[in-house]
């Protein structure tokens, strides 16, 4: 395929001429502000402020490298779910079910591992089961929303309740402990001094960034979230793609289930409770518009890190989780306000 793919009306000189150099954006302070740094400036400032508070109140306990890794590890599971959530929200939807789908996936996966006997090779089966359960639940969400035309909020709320219930029935309200040494070993493996949970988060975030910014999948997501009708009339498969978005969110819930199995070595129906709210908060604090059409993976990663850092600072200072919750709420409002200040200039005025 070459440029002659496109048909122009004017004499076809445009294609044959030497390509004109693209006017490069000048590297000025203003240019930087409107770029990716500027878009995330509020988030960077918020994170920096939290670090300063942490360093002052907890000193070395906070600033040492091990503690930083603790923060990222804390962020990793919610982080993976938030990447999936970012796609759903940019695409103009919402997924309330990710937390309970994660719980369900953890229960089904451990049950399947126990059923298949304590054969050491079954840990891969367990991992794939968790991913498959997440994916299936996501597809079901997507199908009901895209083809059944059920509002996303209601469809995923139903899944939230149903998946949790199903997990309770299957688990019989007991905790399924997995003792597969290979799996535990794998999940606790250190690579370059960084453990598996963090690597998984990094890989999912990078893959999500590429998927959103460099692929047709990402372009479709932005188009559908930005103007569903225009996307449809341009010939995009809006409904199919909408279904894929929820499937993707379900898949990340499955990955999160594997991660929590690695951390706790147990599957239980209560895994992932309220994770959906943490994920939505991280995505929105990260600058993704709740109405869809605009958002970034980078912002979401910052959003997740901000909440994890906050939790860590509070823990280091032995403050209660209730105080934490209040601070979280305040952070959400402040971050969103800052975000609007910095991002608002470039976009519409009303």
């Amino acid at each position: 395929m070459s440029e002659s793919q496109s048909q122009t009306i004017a004499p076809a000189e445009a294609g044959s001429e030497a390509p004109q150099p693209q006017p490069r954006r000048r590297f000025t302070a203003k240019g930087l502000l409107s770029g990716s740094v500027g878009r995330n400036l509020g988030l960077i400032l918020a994170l920096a402020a939290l670090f300063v508070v942490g360093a002052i109140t907890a000193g070395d306990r906070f600033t040492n490298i091990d503690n930083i890794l603790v923060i990222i590890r804390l962020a990793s599971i919610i982080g993976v779910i938030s990447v999936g959530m970012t796609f759903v929200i940019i695409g103009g939807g919402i997924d309330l079910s990710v937390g309970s789908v994660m719980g369900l996936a953890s229960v089904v996966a451990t049950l399947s591992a126990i059923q298949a006997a304590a054969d050491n090779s079954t840990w891969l089966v367990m991992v794939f089961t968790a991913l498959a359960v997440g994916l299936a639940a996501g597809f079901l969400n997507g199908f009901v929303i895209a083809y059944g035309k059920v509002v996303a909020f209601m469809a995923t709320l139903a899944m939230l309740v149903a998946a949790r219930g199903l997990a309770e029935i299957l688990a019989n309200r007991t905790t399924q402990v997995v003792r597969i040494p290979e799996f535990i070993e794998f999940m606790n493996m250190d690579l370059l001094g960084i453990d598996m949970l963090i690597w998984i988060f990094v890989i999912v975030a990078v893959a999500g960034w590429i998927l959103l910014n460099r692929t047709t999948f990402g372009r479709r997501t932005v188009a559908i979230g930005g103007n569903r009708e225009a996307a449809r009339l341009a010939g995009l498969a809006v409904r199919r793609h909408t279904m894929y978005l929820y499937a993707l969110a379900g898949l990340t819930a499955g990955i999160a289930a594997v991660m929590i199995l690695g951390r706790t070595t147990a599957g239980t129906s209560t895994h992932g409770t309220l994770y959906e709210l943490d994920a939505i908060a991280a995505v929105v604090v990260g600058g993704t518009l709740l109405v869809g059409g605009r958002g970034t993976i980078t912002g979401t990663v910052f959003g997740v890190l901000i909440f994890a850092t906050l939790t860590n600072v509070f823990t280091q200072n032995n403050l209660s989780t209730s105080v934490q919750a209040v601070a979280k709420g305040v952070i959400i409002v402040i971050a969103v306000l800052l975000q609007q200040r910095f991002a608002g200039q470039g976009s519409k005025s009303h």
Partner: protein
Amino acid sequence: MTGISKSFSGVQALKNVDLEIAAGEVHCILGQNGAGKSTLIKTLAGAHLPDAGTIEWNGEHVSLHSPQDAIELGIATMYQELDVVDGLTIAENIFLGHELAVGGFLRTGEANTRTRRLLERLGHGDLSPSREVGSLSAANKQIVSMARALSHDTRLIIMDEPSAVLDGEEVKNLFRVVRELTSAGIAVVYITHRLEEIREIGDRITVLKDGRSTANGLDVSETPTSELIRRMTGREVENVFPPATPVPDDAPLALEVEGLSLDGVFHDVGFTVRAGEVVGLAGLVGSGRSEILETIYGARRATSGTVRANGRSLRRGSVRDAVRAGVGLSPEERKSQGLLLDEPIFRNVTLSSFAKFARGGFVDERRERRIATEQIDALELRPADPDRPARTLSGGNQQKILLARWLVNRTSVLLLDEPTRGVDVGARAEIYALIRELAANGDAVVVVSSEIEEVLGLADTVLVVGDGRILTTVKSDQIDEHQVLDLVMKGTAA
């Protein structure tokens, strides 16, 4: 207003513009899209603060920091995008923001009474104040918008292209209302693209070009049309409609529509379009014109009938199938149905084709940008910056984005719904020329327009639509505007 200047993030929208409006006159503002008309009126309405210049009101300096300031002075604005809330009643809309209330309790009865009085004044006493606005036609929504403007003690009403959504009869009513207002001493600033309307209603004209005023307060009756066009475009526009290239009789059939019906909207529509032919659908708003296009395109699922494009039968209700067969639609509502307003021009241009330019699922933005730039040059799209968000473009240039989208996709059957709505005279001529050039290159084009003149001037063949049926099919040179209107009004086959 004297010496008004305004720039947005480095782009100078207005340079030293003067505007003087007398009480009781209809002052028309004329200019191409992007000339600065909207910015000027928004400045006057208090929505923008000018960078330089002063505004005097009845001899006193004023500065308008918010729309509220302007309203308090007696300046009301009817924006182009009707700013009414669909879910509220007519009365609630009219008193939105200054509700009649006692201690927080709404005085619904009083609001309804006053609303009825306002509506009667506007010649629409038949509308019930408690009716929900969402159920009204565009014309009636405009009446609500006007009633709202009058609910304050208004001395000046700004009307931004009020006739764009109206039919002939409704425009007449609008003019009657405008005349009543001016005879009561209220000044009207009237913005339009239609020169003939200025002739009919205007007293004086201010012409804007590229953010400067090229004429201030010209007397309408003494200024010839050619003079206005020259001041507006900086060049002469003589023949608006370019000559048609004759379509050979053996040209292949590009689009065949047979017995197409959509329950409750239109029945048994059938016609063919040859490659290189322009077919126009003429008819009133609500006659089913747009629905016919949308059904051909698969955006609505036909109840019965078949559509073939380039010899291939299209699946009912599948836009994707139509696009794959080489059909493209430029929808009636550009902003809400056609564009991703916050996305850059190039991504809007490649919205239907980015997957083709992608390699293994990875988009190739450099290539997309280059191809979009070729189209920008070919269609003379302004500003010629592929990274500019579509929102910032004028109506005519947004229309060009949609044309470019289908050109890039190698579309051979173009369905254009109101391609020149909200597009000014100069850019209209360009779009007409583009459409004719596309036809000359062998594309089949179907045009829907509320302006009969446009359909007749542009099309080779005219289909007159009324009452959900095709009333007649005729060569465009064998019918004139009156005959079309006659047919449409009678609503029966000739």
